[in-house]
């Protein structure tokens, strides 16, 4: 075989794994869609999404409690995580002396690699008693501690390492010379951050936040351990909730004798996948638009 034809063969060999991974997404969507067909044919989509009655034995499959549970927990987690993460990332990227940065960064990276079940245990051991015995009584509320607040806190702790490292990377893309332009005119470090670094990177920061959202949506284990798992539309952060990933993880393989149950869980998975994909696309889109504006 000549060197040239060998190169062509290698090119096609490399093509296969590259395509394989992207095909996976389509395969998943198709399988989930096909499996959810049974439940989708029982009622119009809008009824399924907006009904809050989840009684599988009676054949009632309303997804609203799970959708709302997912939204509450994720939104709370992001509200808690975004400010902390951005401030830490700004500190690490713009203020921290190299010695401090080199100490903190590996710890944050390690944190993002910890299995989520450990975060769940941490939530049960620390956060739940804290809410049950201190936070809720302080506000005159009776709570078991297993609630949205606990889920949101655990989830916030889980997403902030990734938010910190991604936004740190984004801040580091600003060339030194551009910061120096501001500093060289007598700007303080904070002015350089505000006028140069954040101004230059806000599209990236927005994309990071959206990616953080899509990650938080799918987080399963730690959240289901602390969030209470009651299929009811929540009305306060001290209510229990039942996010979509928890629904699937808790029930798949159990109670499968109930008609349509299997298909209902598949549809929950499809919903989750759709939400995450939509958020990822949004991140791409925002980046594209904002880059164009520049």
């Amino acid at each position, binding site marked *: 075989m000549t060197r040239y034809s060998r190169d062509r063969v290698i090119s096609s060999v490399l093509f296969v794994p590259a395509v394989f991974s992207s095909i996976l997404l389509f395969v998943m969507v198709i399988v989930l869609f096909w499996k959810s067909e049974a439940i989708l044919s029982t009622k119009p989509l809008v009824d399924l999404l907006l009904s809050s009655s989840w009684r599988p034995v009676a054949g009632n499959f309303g997804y609203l409690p799970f959708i709302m549970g997912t939204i509450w927990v994720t939104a709370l987690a992001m509200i808690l995580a975004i400010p902390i993460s951005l401030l830490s990332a700004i500190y690490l990227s713009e203020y921290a*002396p*190299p010695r401090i940065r080199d100490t903190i960064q590996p710890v944050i990276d390690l944190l993002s690699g910890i299995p989520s079940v450990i975060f769940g245990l941490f939530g049960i051991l620390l956060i739940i008693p804290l809410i049950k015995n201190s936070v809720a009584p302080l506000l005159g509320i009776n709570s078991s501690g297993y609630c949205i607040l606990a889920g949101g806190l655990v989830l916030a702790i889980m997403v902030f390492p990734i938010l910190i490292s991604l936004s740190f990377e984004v801040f580091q893309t600003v*060339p*030194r*010379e*551009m910061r*120096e*332009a*501001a*500093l*060289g*005119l*007598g*700007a*303080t470090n904070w*002015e350089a951050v505000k*006028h*140069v670094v954040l*101004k*230059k990177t806000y599209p990236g920061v927005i994309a990071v936040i959206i990616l953080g959202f899509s990650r938080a949506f799918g987080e399963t284990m730690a959240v289901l351990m602390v969030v209470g798992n009651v299929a009811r539309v929540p009305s306060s952060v001290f209510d229990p909730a039942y996010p979509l990933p928890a629904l699937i993880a808790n029930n798949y393989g159990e109670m499968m004798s109930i008609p349509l149950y299997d298909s209902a869980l598949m549809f929950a998975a499809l919903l989750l996948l759709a939400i995450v994909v939509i958020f990822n696309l949004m991140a791409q889109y925002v980046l594209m638009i904002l880059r164009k504006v*520049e």
Partner: protein
Amino acid sequence: MNETEISIKNFSLYIENRQILKNISVDIPKNQITAIIGPSGCGKTTLLRSINRMVDLYTPVLAEGEIIINGKNVLDPDINLSLLRKNVGMIAQAPNPLPLSIYDNVVYGLRIHGIHERSALDTRAEQCLQSVGLWSEVHDRLKDPASQLSLGQQQRLCLARALAVEPEILLCDETTSALDPISARHIENELICLKNDYTIVFVTHILRQAKRLADYVVFLYLGELVEHGPAHEVFTNPQDPRTKAYLEGVFG
């Protein structure tokens, strides 16, 4: 004799325990162009960045000796860096416009130093753009992003931006090296015009450029100050064999 603007006395600088600059003493004359020349890695840029204290931006440094401007030692840890850098402007190697409009770039320094009155900003912006010969090219698109200008225009914008805060000293770090020859000449001519009002310290590794611009020359070699003096003396009659060798192109 000439007045001194920057007085460097027994200045040594260490970065990560490595000595970069060795016991440098030189008086930089007021309202002249001083060229710092020397082969790459000799500490030219480090010396320049010490004058406005940019040198310790990313890594902690150890400095000995003094750099005196207006009676104050800029190496003093308590010095107000904001006021120092207002007085000592810097133009970087490659143009570094801020991610703002042309107008906002020029008045950026004024704004951070507390001037917000529209008419004052407008007047100063026009003056500064005029003095770098950019006004006629940009006056009808001041609101456009600065990044849309050509590189040569961007560098003149950076010069205008530095002038806007009325510094006494301009530090230029191979300021023309990223530009085409015509834009480079443009900047050189601006600098020659500006030296009546400013003290300019210019780092360059291009000897011909130093010969064109410099009134006073500082020759560094391996972190040491080898020779300094009025340009015509250093260039025509170098005292040190290393200066002689460098000028003859033995090492570059």
